[in-house]
């Protein structure tokens, strides 16, 4: 018995158990949330008050402080999602599936934010809310991939099947993402010339870059906080038949009762 208790403790995989991850997530989430708040305020301040006005685009360019981190994050989250899906399918760890499902809504949200802010930026800059540019189009398709993943995992009642089916489609999507990206890019260059380019002026003021990076870190911290918070009730729901969940719920009920 002692050996069985000690073995997972010594291993890196200790927190792969929902029972140990649940309190850890609860402890970490507020810190990431605080970091996200501080970084967002700092990034916004840098972006809106410190960074100089762009020579060619004027004030409109300031949308990049939200747009670029959101776009980065939306792509990165899909990779992380696919990674957890692969880990789940290969190693049969329940928590990996929970992680990938908790990440998906945030990824979809960032995808939408990137598209929306891009549209708001495009109107004054290009004169159109939407152009069928390769990057815009592949971002839109990424949003569809997220929505498909979320819809599939929500539509299947049995959590075990939902986990695996979602992981499968996440992996199929991850294989297809580069194919989609390059095909869209090629399609775009075939159809319309480089009339519109997303590439910014090569020289970027260092405060602009700093603001963008700080906002990117804020997006990371936000994602971690929200995901950890989303994971907790999902763990409780799935492990509701176990003793430790009963103990946790009892303790929380007692705390809520005592506070009143």
């Amino acid at each position: 018995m002692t050996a069985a208790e000690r073995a997972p403790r010594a291993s890196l995989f200790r927190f792969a158990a929902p029972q140990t991850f649940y309190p850890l997530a609860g402890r970490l989430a507020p810190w990431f949330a605080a970091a996200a708040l501080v970084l967002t305020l700092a990034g916004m301040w840098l972006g809106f008050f410190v960074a100089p006005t762009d020579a060619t685009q004027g004030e409109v360019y300031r949308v990049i402080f939200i747009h670029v981190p959101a776009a980065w994050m939306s792509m990165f989250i899909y990779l992380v999602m696919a990674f957890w899906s692969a880990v789940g399918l290969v190693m049969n760890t329940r928590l990996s599936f929970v992680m990938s499902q908790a990440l998906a809504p945030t990824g979809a949200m960032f995808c939408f934010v990137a598209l929306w802010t891009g549209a708001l930026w495009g109107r004054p800059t290009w004169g159109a809310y939407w152009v069928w540019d390769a990057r815009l189009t592949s971002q839109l398709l990424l949003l569809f991939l997220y929505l498909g993943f979320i819809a599939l995992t929500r539509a299947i009642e049995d959590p075990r099947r939902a986990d695996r089916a979602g992981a499968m489609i996440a992996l199929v999507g991850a294989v297809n993402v580069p194919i989609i990206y390059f095909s869209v890019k090629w399609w775009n260059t075939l159809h319309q010339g480089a009339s519109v380019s997303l590439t910014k002026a090569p020289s970027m003021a260092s405060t602009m870059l700093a603001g963008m990076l700080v906002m990117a870190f804020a997006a990371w911290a936000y994602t971690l906080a929200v995901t950890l918070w989303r994971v907790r009730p999902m763990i409780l729901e799935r492990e509701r038949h176990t003793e430790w969940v009963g103990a946790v719920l009892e303790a929380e009920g007692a705390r809520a009762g005592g506070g009143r």
Partner: protein
Amino acid sequence: MLNTFVAVLRRDLLLAWRGRADVLVTLAFFVIVVCLFPFGVGAEPNQLRAIAPGVLWVAVLLSCLLSMHRLFAQDHADGTLEQLLLSSEPAVVWVGAKVLAFWLSTGLPVVVVAPGLALLLDLEQGALPVLVVSLLLGTPILALLGAVGAALTLGVRGGGMLLALLVLPLFVPVLIFGAGAVEAELSGTGAVAHLLLLGGGCAGALALAPWACAASLRISME
């Protein structure tokens, strides 16, 4: 192994032949979708000629999608699928046979009808062979990718719509290169590059999709 493949292929083709009406419905859907476009965008021949490759390819995507959920649904309902999964034969083999039978009974008729519809839209006759070749290379990819989606959404409520949401984004590259091949031929740049890419995609899908589909069926049936 080859015996399994041939047996499942023959069985599915026989079933498709007995249920010919389903195939005809798919074809009718394909024809009607294409015929709706002139009503929507106007019967101006130049305009129709310009949009013809895209319209034909989108109609092919939609009619493939429409019949896709049938791929495993019947076998799922009568328990055949469960027996097949329990059998000692490798799942990839009979999954491949089923997808091939599905393509022969649904994809191939659409490819055969497409040139006729292309004439309705006044597509240049010189581009017809390229259209047919692009469809011959592209529709197997649709069937293979769609099979993975169909396996994952097996017996799920709202399965048809869900299937569309899952696989349509994955179909985009096929659409781009398929319609692009015809347009490249029309513009005189030559369709070889597009067709080679489609062929590469077809080979890749052929190598990977049956495995993904077999794994998905196991996930859905356990």
